[in-house]
């Protein structure tokens, strides 16, 4: 089984790139792979707690928490990007983490594949 590192800059709401990448992570985990998921820029909001699901907007918190529970999915937000958006440590959903950008590069170091979605 392999390790996939996914990095994303795109918004939780306003783009479907996060939806796509979380679905991809879900498929990889189901196949037995491990996934490191890095959020930078607007993507950091995906690990903020208190998200309310509406049918008109992407709602990924539940899926992310189910993925964390598998033990094969690590999700980490860029700490500076989060703080710049007023999203503090205590606002983080259970099981998600926050680090500096070098964490992502370290994850890429031993990843079998890296998928980086750098747009918005």
């Amino acid at each position, binding site marked *: 089984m392999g390790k996939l590192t996914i*990095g994303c*800059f795109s918004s939780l709401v306003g783009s479907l790139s996060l939806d796509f990448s979380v679905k991809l992570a879900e498929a990889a985990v189901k196949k037995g792979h491990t996934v490191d998921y890095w959020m*930078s*820029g*607007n993507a950091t909001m995906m690990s903020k707690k208190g998200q309310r699901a509406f049918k008109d907007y992407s709602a990924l918190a539940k899926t992310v928490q189910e993925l964390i529970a598998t033990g094969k999915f690590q999700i980490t937000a860029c700490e500076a*990007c989060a703080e710049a958006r007023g999203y503090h440590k205590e606002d983080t959903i259970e099981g998600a983490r926050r680090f*500096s*950008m*070098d*964490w*992502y*590069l*370290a994850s*890429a*170091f031993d*990843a079998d*594949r*890296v998928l*980086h979605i*750098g*747009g*918005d």
Partner: protein
Amino acid sequence: MATRKLLFVVRALPYKTEASRLGLTHAISSQSVEIYLKDGDLVEASIAFIGDGVMNCLKNQQAMKHYGLTSIEGHMKNTLLLDMKVMVCKEDLDKFGIKEDALLMDAEDIGGETNTQIVPYSEIQKEMESVDHLLFC
């Protein structure tokens, strides 16, 4: 002991979104990645600007004056100061009519010794083929 090579390929315009800035800051963070790795392991990052992304390389950016923000140019200077390989696509510069003297080519004013390289796309493609992972921004 191993080295993994990453190439950040920047296609986004500066300031329109955060993508090009984040590409640069992520590349710069390769300098501190060792804290997460075993002794001797390294991540080596390089950057290529293609398409609209070449606009990030213009010099005399006034982001602080107009937005109160550090400029992309400042981040580019830091990459040169850190001896990272910075490539700019020649064909895309030609399409925009941008000449070399309009670009940030060095970081001599802050002690940098590495220069920006204006290269044909074929050279960027070779770099893409030589690295372990590609990250498009």
